[in-house]
């Protein structure tokens, strides 16, 4: 059950679009910086496949310039 955090850099002037696009992905939490063009994105998925799929979806967003992973955790499944 991976939890990953990323720094997402928007293209110039497209921070709001990027926030909107990321907010539509149910497994993503988005925390925009108040004073810079940068977002923190945290993904919380059920398995590695879903984790890979969400990463691909984020990378396909037009307003995204660069996605850099910061930390990754894998937690045990809840029973």
């Amino acid at each position, binding site marked *: 059950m991976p939890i990953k955090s990323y720094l997402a850099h928007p293209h110039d002037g497209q921070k709001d679009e990027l926030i909107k696009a990321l907010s539509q992905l149910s497994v993503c939490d988005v925390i925009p910086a108040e004073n810079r063009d940068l977002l923190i994105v945290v993904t919380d998925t059920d398995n590695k496949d879903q984790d890979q799929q969400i990463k691909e979806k984020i990378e396909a967003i037009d307003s995204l310039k660069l996605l850099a992973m910061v930390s990754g*955790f894998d937690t045990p499944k809840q029973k």
Partner: protein
Amino acid sequence: MYTSLTNRRSFIKKMAVLSAMTAAASMFPGILFAEEQEKNLPKGGNLDWKKAPCRFCGVGCGVLVGIDDGKAVAVKGDPKSPVNKGLCCVKGYHSIMALYGKDRLTKPLVKKNGKYVETTMEEALDLVASKMQETIKDHGKDAVSIYGSGQWTIPDGYAASKLFKGCIGTNNVEANARLCMASAVTGFLTSFGIDEPMGCYEDIDHADVFVLWGNNMAEMHPVLFSRLLDQRLKRGVKIIDFATRTTRTSMAADKSILFLPQTDLAVANAICYEIIKNGWVNKSFVDKHCNFSKGLTNMGYGLEDKYKFTDKPEGISFEDFKTFLEDYTPEKVEKISGVSAKDIKYMASYYGDPNKKVMSLWCMGMNQHSRGTWINNLVYNIHLLTGKISTPGNSPFSLTGQPSACGTVREVGTLTHKLPHGVVMKQEHREFAAKIWDVPVENIDPKPTYHTVEMFRALDRGDIKFMWIQVTNPMVTMPKLKRYRDGAKKEGRFVVVSDIYPTPTTDIADVILPSAMWIEREGLFGNSERRTQYFEQMVTPPGEAMSDTWQLVEVAKRMGFEKQFYYNEESHIEEIYTEYRKHHDNKKHNMAPLEVLKNQPGAMWPYVDGKETKWRFNAKYDPACSNGEDFHFYGKPDGKAVIWQRPYEPAAEEPDAEYPYWLNTGRVVEHWHTGSMTRRIPVLHKAMPHSYVELNPDDAKRLQIRTGDKVKLTTRRGEIVLPASVNQRGVPAPMQVFVPFFDENMLINDITLDSFCPISKEPDYKKCAVNIEKV
């Protein structure tokens, strides 16, 4: 099980957010997430944000700790704190995780027949008190000792000093700040007659040039360094990294200048030479506010037991000083230091330019130095000659490494010669302390006993039989460690260790007392800029863990000092702090009342008439100035600062044919000192799991060593094997190696040298001779 997994998952998610914030903060100084972070935390919970100073370094960042259902679950930088303005470093963001390591000490342990046996706190404290009384009865008061730290809260250190110096009557009180800040103290005392920086962090917002003297700020003081980088973005300030090794700081600086170990002494003198030669001396400032002095030279290095040294200052003239500097022309110093004459002149030109405000910053590079007091004096010389001192942006600034090295060790005075106000050697200071402590003045011994290295030598020799160690890990940090570890284990020694986790130091203990950590108790820290900060108890300590302050109070009461330790458990921090403030009840050092500290992110002393003092010795800002001039260095009887004639002298042990490399030791950004807390934080441990030896790439190539290869380091004290690091985080100069000391499984201090500055008695962890071989 379901609940605990949910909580764990939620916790991990928060940590993932915090890691990202830390990374963002290092890329974009000044970036703010604080409000957004709060918005994204669980709704409907009982999350309560409470303010505290960070537990780790001496910067003293203000943090807000999120408490949920009695547990600390999140940390964010306090946007109201003038120190960090909402930022935190990687350690700060993860600090609360150090509370919850799975092997926290929760029960007292007593060694019986070689095995640790659980007992109650009552019984353990009874044993500590009775053992101390028995030792005093059999061997005298100077056979017992306490060794604390710059992580002691102010009340911890105050209770220790009052018990040992005031009640028991021994000056066997030392703290690990002797290992990191003592040279800064003696530097201040010899140059200004009074301790601690004249300026404050706000200098960063005014300075045009920053010269970092052997100070890897990017890793050791990352939040303050981000403030420097922020000023570069905003105002184009210049950052000069003057160091022996290329680090992250060098890479971020505008200019990196490397010097050979120990030769900063020569370079500082060369800068003074240039200032005088080019007519950059602020003559009116020097004439009005400075004296010139010289002291003894060829002092030795303290390598032998019972080494003694007392300096004999002698006044000299400006002309004498000028003549002395003839030996330090940039061209001559180039040959000693490896720094080009051009670079020396470049640095001097910034100090000499009347239109540039200059801040010098330093920490361990200048303090852990066999001539640590001298190099502190020499940097002050530069600022005094040019009059660039005690004004916004013109600031020689000694940074501290621990959260209360200033607040507790230097201000409370938990060193053998010190009292909260003044020194044990002076009758009027003893009388003043005795009155507040409610003890006969004869109780306070006028003679200092052992500084830290000598205290552990005394334990080895058997002159000290009982030692109580709190909040520090000397069995990782002492230089030439093997001697002191073997000494502590000898028959007839009794060692008590108060800590939160098992460490190599608890391994030598006869009694282990579980301590309450940071926000598990109430307390105060004092940071590098004279800022005193309060924190309340936010969570309950685990098991029987108890604050170090209350452990001391309980033992004092058991030893018959109920009258002096009259404090009530529920209000003892307020009672102790209120009593402590009486020692500093004067315009030069008044401390803010506790009520003020509870309501704001700290206050800088001297706190006079409801106002903190940002720049001392400057009449415009400092109400203690009374000479009618613009500046008043009131620490000295004549109100003048001292420009010292101090030569370059070599280190105690320099490379030779047998041991041809320099060994330098230090810290990394991920770990707090010996790693006993940060190595229990998974994110930090994973980021930096073990120690290593950094080699210069050319040396590594010649020796056919690659990153990860095992390398044997041999000194005259022993040998150690470490994995190599080549061209990674830091790059040492040719024929030098660097090893961090955080890893208790790779104890680099087993092979370091216990030489020290003869004036400050602070060991030189930065220089000894070593041989390296591929294993």
